């Protein structure tokens, strides 16, 4: 960070790169679901890139994250290689989880990603555990968990927040409030404001009102990370954002649960467009630099798709590995 608190240009360009990676990766993945190239479905982070990347880039090497079903953005935000991620979505041997996880269950220890969880809320205490080990082993690490406004109504979050608070663990609870859990508007099933729930658990709760501005997200999470690393304990950060697409690709909901005005308002706040404009307005980059970044990422994403499609399927025997660390005899698994 510069003396005036502003981020280095390179960091801000990297933010754009990572946001673009998420956008283009997810757009591509969506098409591949439609074409049957990706089995099952995927949940895209399109529209939420600032919230994801702003949070991830406020962490340091060695820190840990856990995530949820809206999963690709988190490892990408931490800097994952795209190839093994896409190969995982396709179910290939070269997948980051050997083809055994799929979209919902990405993990990439290389960048500190302990794993996404298809069960909402379920990975929250895992991050608390990573904070616990950091404290006992005195390793100066921080752990962050991502979860949605829907998951914010699950009890395990409050158990986890309380535990982290009582033990002053270096944990950040990052709520991605995109206003909906599947077809359910948050306000219809949520008493009070999520950020206001922190205080009663003895920790600060902050809300980033405009989660489409990556610097706002980054600043809030950086402060939480500093607090965590200093030993002062956890923070709950609620980021207000919006998903531009349907809950999951291919899902059709026959009720108009999000109205057009709202959708238009939010899609007009595209985090990638906004950040690009800021960089240009502030004279930190010109349009051609930004275009070059865009092309560079486009190529990267095309390459990851090729890598995925060209990779071999996992050997059937791989299905019987990794359950335990002990060698397990295939014959034994009946």
């Amino acid at each position, binding site marked *: 960070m510069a003396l005036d608190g502003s981020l280095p240009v390179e960091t801000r360009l990297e933010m754009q790169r990572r946001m673009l990676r998420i956008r283009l990766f997810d757009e591509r993945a969506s098409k591949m679901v439609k074409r049957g190239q990706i*089995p*099952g479905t995927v949940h895209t982070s399109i529209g939420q890139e600032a919230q994801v990347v702003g949070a991830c880039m406020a962490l340091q090497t060695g820190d840990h994250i856990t995530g949820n079903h809206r999963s690709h953005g988190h490892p990408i935000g931490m800097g994952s290689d795209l190839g093994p991620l896409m190969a*995982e979505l396709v*179910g*290939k041997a070269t*997948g980051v*989880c050997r*083809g*055994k*996880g*799929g*979209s*919902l*269950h990405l993990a990439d220890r290389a960048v500190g990603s302990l794993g996404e*969880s*298809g*069960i*909402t*809320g*379920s990975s929250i205490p895992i991050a608390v555990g990573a904070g616990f080990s950091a404290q006992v082993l005195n390793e100066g690490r921080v752990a962050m968990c991502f979860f949605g406004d*829907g*998951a914010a*109504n*699950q*009890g395990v979050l409050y158990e986890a927040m309380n535990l982290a608070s009582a033990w002053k663990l270096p944990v950040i609870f990052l709520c991605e409030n995109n206003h909906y*859990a*599947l*077809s*359910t508007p948050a306000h*219809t*099933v*949520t008493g009070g404001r999520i950020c206001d729930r922190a205080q009663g658990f003895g920790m600060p709760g902050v809300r980033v009102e405009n989660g489409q501005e990556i610097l706002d997200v980054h600043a809030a999470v950086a402060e939480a990370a500093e607090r965590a690393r200093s030993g002062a304990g956890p923070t709950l950060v609620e980021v207000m954002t919006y998903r531009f697409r349907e809950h999951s690709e291919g*899902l059709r*909901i*026959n*009720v108009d*649960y999000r109205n057009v005005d709202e959708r238009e308002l939010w899609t007009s706040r595209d985090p990638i467009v906004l950040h690009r404009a800021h960089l240009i307005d502030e004279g930190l980059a010109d349009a051609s630099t930004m275009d070059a970044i865009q092309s560079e990422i486009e190529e990267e994403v095309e390459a990851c798709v090729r890598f995925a499609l060209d990779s071999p*399927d*996992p050997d*059937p025997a*791989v*299905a*019987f590995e990794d*359950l335990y660390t002990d060698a397990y005899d295939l014959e034994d*698994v*009946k």
Partner: protein
Amino acid sequence: MSIMTYIAAIGAAQEEAMVADDRVVVIGEDVEANVYGTTGGGKERAEQGDFVQRFGRSRVRNTPIAEEAIVGCAIGAAMTGLRPIVDLSYSSFLYMAMDQFVNQAAKNRYMFGGQSSIPAVFRSAMFYSLSTGAHHSDRPYPMFMGVPGLKVMAPASASDAKGLLRQAVDSEDPVLTFEAVPLWGAKEEVQDGEYRIPFGQARTRREGGDVTLVAISGSVPVALKAAEKMAGTGVECEVIDPRTLVPLDTKTIVESVMRTGRLVIAEPAHRTCGAAAEIAAVVAEEAYSSLKAPIRRVCARDMQVPFSPALEEQIYPTTERIVAAIEAVTRD
């Protein structure tokens, strides 16, 4: 009679129950928008059949994502005058509410000496064989079979799904229904109007005198295919679907094995401590003297479920694995 899919049959039973009794309510995540296809007839809310329009938001309610509270709330409501149907969507989410199932739903009536009963239905669907990955592919019904106080049903066809669900809503005790998503689209002739299928009565899907083939949930059609194949080689299988697992119709199974002397059991749950283990144990005790061959189980292998389609299918019972088991027990 009309032809109906498995999923439509569930919706129909639910609708009939809502119409028949004002105390029946449906709660769950995303039930208002009919995301899982059992709370509305048409594609658009305006079309006929939408539960919210027909029954109102007091009786059809979206819940927060909070399985433990949802299940507990349904139990408390059932104890005090309602007859809730809880849509938990994926069976994989039941673990979140395990304490409520085991410590409240199953135990309350007993430990309070019968002061309250709990007429609640907990619906959940087993998504598997659909590339949904380890977190969304569970088939956890055996866990609940071992919890006295719960009733457990696992229909394998449209007509059974409808008649059993209706019976479940009528039950004064908590019922867990495990629906098989691979069968959602499977069609069957279904009786028109209201009907109920009593719990604890197996359905013999095919008669045969050589081997008893007990199959559960999504394994029933697979078993029927295997039986068909074996018939071609002159081996006649009697295919029995228990339909409800608690209570379990051991009588029909034991009687069949007494005739055939051979037993193969197929089910989509893990092998260890599954329903097949229970059935094998019952038969090894009660039909021992008639047994002419080892009892074979064809279950999901004791692995978690891998995502890649190149890996997943081998986890579950396939026609080939069932055929191999039948061949093995007839060889002896």
